[in-house]
């Protein structure tokens, strides 16, 4: 019975899975880029930039992701800025997670020994070159394990896109369940699909952590 239903539901859920993957990857990209911008502003040594970034990160951190999604999808159109549900989901999750990414990146950058900065400066490097050649390459190693964890959280939080009508995996499941009343089959499948995507990431993070401990 389960297997028969599962075979029937699986292709429908795969459509949702496709959107889940797209939302996750796109918002991961956006949150990484934006998070790096916040972090670099914080450590730039320019007070106005650092203050602005700190305020932005605190505002973003202080508002639930779901409210940010509602804001982008329902409020911005009133100001003449309209996004499709997919765009709004990617932008919303990207911005929301940029705050966590930036804190992680900043911690990584600040963990670099101050002597590295002095060595770079004494070679005549400017700020941008020092970041690119000396600081960021070393910070990446420190930042990677928590970055992997963020990826896992984003994969699961992509389900919040369902609240603004993106028919991703969780939403597809809900729609299937409410139309067929096969709650246990549908949600078991949904849970398994999330797990199948998460477990490789979890193993990857574990490997990164072991590797960073070794070096």
């Amino acid at each position: 019975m389960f297997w028969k239903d599962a075979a029937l539901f699986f292709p429908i859920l795969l459509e949702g899975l496709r959107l889940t993957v797209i939302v996750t990857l796109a918002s991961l990209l956006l949150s990484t880029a934006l998070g790096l911008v916040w972090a670099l502003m914080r450590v730039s040594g320019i007070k106005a930039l650092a203050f602005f970034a700190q305020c932005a990160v605190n505002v973003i951190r202080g508002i639930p992701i779901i409210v940010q999604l509602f804001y982008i999808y329902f409020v911005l159109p009133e100001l003449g800025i309209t996004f499709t549900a997919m765009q709004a989901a990617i932008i919303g999750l990207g911005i929301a997670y940029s705050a966590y990414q930036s804190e992680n990146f900043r911690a990584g950058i600040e963990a670099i020994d101050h002597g590295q900065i002095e060595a770079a400066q004494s070679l005549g490097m400017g700020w941008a070159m020092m970041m690119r050649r000396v600081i960021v390459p070393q910070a990446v190693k420190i930042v990677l394990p928590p970055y992997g964890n963020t990826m896992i959280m984003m994969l699961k939080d992509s389900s919040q896109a369902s609240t603004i009508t993106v028919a991703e995996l969780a939403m597809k499941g809900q729609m299937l369940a409410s139309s067929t009343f096969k709650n246990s089959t549908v949600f078991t499948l949904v849970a398994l699909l999330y797990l199948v995507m998460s477990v490789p990431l979890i193993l990857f993070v574990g490997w990164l952590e072991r590797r960073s401990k070794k070096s």
Partner: protein
Amino acid sequence: MTTPVIELIDVHKHFGSNHVLRGINATIAKGEVVCIIGPSGSGKSTILRCVNGLEAYDGGEVRVDGIRVDRSAPSITSIRTHVSMVFQRFNLFPHRTALENVIEGPVFVKREPRESALVRGRELLARVGLADKEDARPAQLSGGQMQRVAIARALAMQPNAILFDEPTSALDPELVGEVLAVMRTLAEEGMTMAVVTHEMGFAREVADRVLFIDGGVIVEAGPAKQLLTEPQHPRTQDFLRRVLRPI
């Protein structure tokens, strides 16, 4: 008279309310080796750090090759390529090999072609006795080897002077000699050097002049042998007594 490589004119520096440099006047001419000695916290390292702009000073003037050192001016980059620095804790880039550490400045700051920088980088590593270590990461090297790579990195910039900030203080005693030997060779080849050090033997044999700093002022300055063997000022005498006979 030619322009001195390094000039300090009535240099003052505060760390908060702490007045660490109280009017330092000194010049270092081309080819001169000057050792700066004094108790810890006396401001020795701060002097070096003001010369290449790692630290700002708040009174007087520091000049390198006649150009005023100003951390916020664009000229600071060229000043830093004129005077290299060797640090107490080496500060090698741990994610790069010995050779990559040496060519980093020439290739990325001075925009030298990679091929010629590599050739010169290998020569410099050979000169500090580390020809066989070009592919080693800093973590695979001993302290003495790391400091010699750091000296090669400083030389790779083809500087007019090198500042040494307690280059042997972080080393195990048996590794001090190999670093001092490299520095001695540099001095013999005519490199202009300012060396903050506790190695009185090195200062006596290699330095042209010695500055004794205490409490942010130059208490006594003079030719190395004279200052170290017949110090005039009681504070210099007292310091040397404690350093040379610590027990």
